[in-house]
């Protein structure tokens, strides 16, 4: 089976962002209340902490056709739960290394530390990530063809 | 597009829902264009499904003599039945069947005095036979119905039992509940004990369905009374997927419960490994 694409249509990536409730989700809110725009291609899922993000969720997103997944948490040292993002950092480092090892574009995954006060950073990060993923194009390597419309 | 394979279900629409007990509902089911999705014999089953959730084997509780619709009594006990309980009139499900064998209503049972023994939701498959026999009343002898449940509220189809069966000619209905209850003046006690108390004549044929523990002790009781295993029928339930004896999971000995069952005579079961 081949994924066929309409070349005329502008590629709009589908991006999932997991944001920790205490820092990054608040940062996203601040970006909003500061009216800082970034493309609509990213949708945020609120999790209590970056350490709640299971690799299963990331793979699931790619399976269902996400083109990029970004995980945002508090800066190391600032975790609301003290240690959560440290574990997340190790897990994601290893997982991303594995995806790279399997030949899947490393740039489709990212971890960023965004505090509640960094609305501007949040918006900039999202714009940059969307830009990166848009350049990569559609995720073909890690998706489930059954889920294609 | 329309391909004929027993694995491919028909779409059916729910045309009526009756809440029987706190966890049992009875569903009237019709083909979308009206009428029944298919014909069946008493004791046969169908695979009901909500696509995306799963498929499960459910016995058809209505009698083949009901020409208008099919009925299924469903107890909430798992993922699919939970979802079915959330359905409303007009919702569609899929159904395929008829699957499995049936009670030998046209052969061995004909002309016999019949005893139906059921516990809880176990009445569902027997109800199909009872109504079949009542609709062909002359083909069968005396009918005894022994039915028990935990409480009065858990008796499935209480109204029909009282208003139809109990009033039918030459039919005796014996109801029992496990523990005494305020608005209950009937018998109290477990089904196996009640069966023994009733002192049924041993030339009758027994059709039995209920929880395994009830089956086990009732069978013992019947044997003690002098019944032989050749006189006693039951239905079995095992994990089934294909319903046509191919997917393998209901295989016991040389039998496939979904295809060779669910109705078995106890002497047949004796010859099978105890893996059910």
């Amino acid at each position, binding site marked *: 089976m081949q994924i066929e694409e309409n070349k005329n249509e502008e590629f709009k990536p589908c991006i999932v962002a997991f944001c920790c409730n205490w820092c990054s989700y608040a940062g996203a809110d601040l970006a909003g209340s500061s009216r800082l725009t970034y493309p609509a291609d990213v949708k945020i899922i609120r999790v209590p902490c970056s350490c709640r993000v299971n690799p299963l969720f990331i793979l699931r997103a790619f399976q269902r056709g996400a083109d990029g997944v970004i995980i945002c948490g508090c800066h190391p040292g600032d975790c609301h739960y003290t*240690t959560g993002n*440290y574990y997340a950092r190790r897990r994601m480092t290893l997982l991303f*290394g*594995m995806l790279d090892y399997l*030949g899947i574009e490393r740039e489709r995954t990212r971890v960023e530390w965004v505090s509640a006060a960094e609305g501007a950073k949040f918006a900039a990060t999202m714009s940059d990530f969307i830009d990166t993923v848009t350049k990569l194009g559609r995720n073909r390597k890690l998706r489930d063809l059954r889920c294609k419309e | 597009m329309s391909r004929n394979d027993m694995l491919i279900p028909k779409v059916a629409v729910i045309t009526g829902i009756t809440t029987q007990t706190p966890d049992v509902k009875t569903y009237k089911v019709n083909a979308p264009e009206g009428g029944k999705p298919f014909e069946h014999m008493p004791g046969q089953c169908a695979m009901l499904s909500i696509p995306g959730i799963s498929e499960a084997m459910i016995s058809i509780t209505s009698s083949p003599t009901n020409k208008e619709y099919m009925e299924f009594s469903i107890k909430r006990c798992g993922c699919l039945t939970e979802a079915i309980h959330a359905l409303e009139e007009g919702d569609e499900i899929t159904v395929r069947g008829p699957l499995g064998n049936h009670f030998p209503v046209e052969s061995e049972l004909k002309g016999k005095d019949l005893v139906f023994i059921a516990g809880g939701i176990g009445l569902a498959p027997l109800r199909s036979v009872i109504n079949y026999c009542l609709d062909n009343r002359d083909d069968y002898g005396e009918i005894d119905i022994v039915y028990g449940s935990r409480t009065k509220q858990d008796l499935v189809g209480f109204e029909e039992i009282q208003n139809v069966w109990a009033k039918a000619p030459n039919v005796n209905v014996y109801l029992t509940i496990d523990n005494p209850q305020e608005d209950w003046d009937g018998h109290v006690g477990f089904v196996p004990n009640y069966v023994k108390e009733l002192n049924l004549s041993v030339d009758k044929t027994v059709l039995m369905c209920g929880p395994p523990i009830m089956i086990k002790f009732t069978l013992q009781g019947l044997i003690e009374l002098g019944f032989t295993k050749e006189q006693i029928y039951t239905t079995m339930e095992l994990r089934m997927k294909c319903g046509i004896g191919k997917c393998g999971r209901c295989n016991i000995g040389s039998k496939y419960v979904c295809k060779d069952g669910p109705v078995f005579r106890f002497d047949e079961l004796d010859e099978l490994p105890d893996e059910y």
Partner: protein
Amino acid sequence: MQRVIDKVKELLANGVADRVLAWKVGEFPYDRIPGVFKDDLDGLCYDSFSACNLSKYLINETKKDGRVLVLMKPCDSYGVNLLIKEHRIDREKIYILAVPCNCKVDIEKIKDSGIKGIIDIAEEGDVLKINTVYGQKELDRRQVLCDKCLSCQGKKHVIYDEIIEDDEQQNIEKTDRMEAVEELEAMSPEERFAFWRSELSKCIRCNACRNVCPACSCNKCIFDNTDTGVAAKSNADSFEENMFHIIRAFHVAGRCTDCGECSRVCPQNIPLHLLNRKFIKEINELYGEFQAGEDAVTTGPLTFFTMEDAEPDVVYKKGRD
């Protein structure tokens, strides 16, 4: 071999245990099946074909009454420590007899060399004398050793109650276990993708890799548990081939002892150990050398952290050097 049997007899006679978990002779001269012996040690065998890792069998054995004597090769002993650490086996209920290992022979490699119809195999020094229906053949055992043995962690037993010292000193050339990982890392992403697609697409989801793995000791695997939402029985889409193996490798990351059983048992010869070794390599490089099962107490690298840990983009930067 005889020393091992004698020692087992002695230990059982001394009452250190009431049974022994070891390898049993099977149908063919090279079949060595894990088995439990009580009084009759007939068929107990320890030789070049006793490749199976016995450590995971201890989970079930220690659920039974009494104490079990178990024969342990060096590479398998790491699994025992891991299982003790994770409370999957009770140290009190096992008595470990450490047995020396001079690498095991891979029957598939013998067959791949063109030898068919094997009736009997005799080992004389490094020479395997193989009697087949197509005549007598000879092979140097060093050419047909299990892959897992060529890059094992050495002859050290990390846990035992009693040890049978190694008396033979064979000179087997070991390879660097990270060599293949490094080769893959050196490829372009497209080449790596092609490599893993061609390997993982062979997967038939038989679960042998998982069921044999001493780190995969879950009572119920998430891929079997329909409540998890990720359960699957077959790789209905190539995504599921990736999913299963990535997640399995992730779940055993920091716990995999690198015993090599996953690759050895794979009916499709998928080099699954290369996934686990990638994690081992990353962990060693980023968080310091760690050998799972080295002891039964040290916290694993994924349940531990330091404040100075590398940021996740280290992976990305590495590729850019």
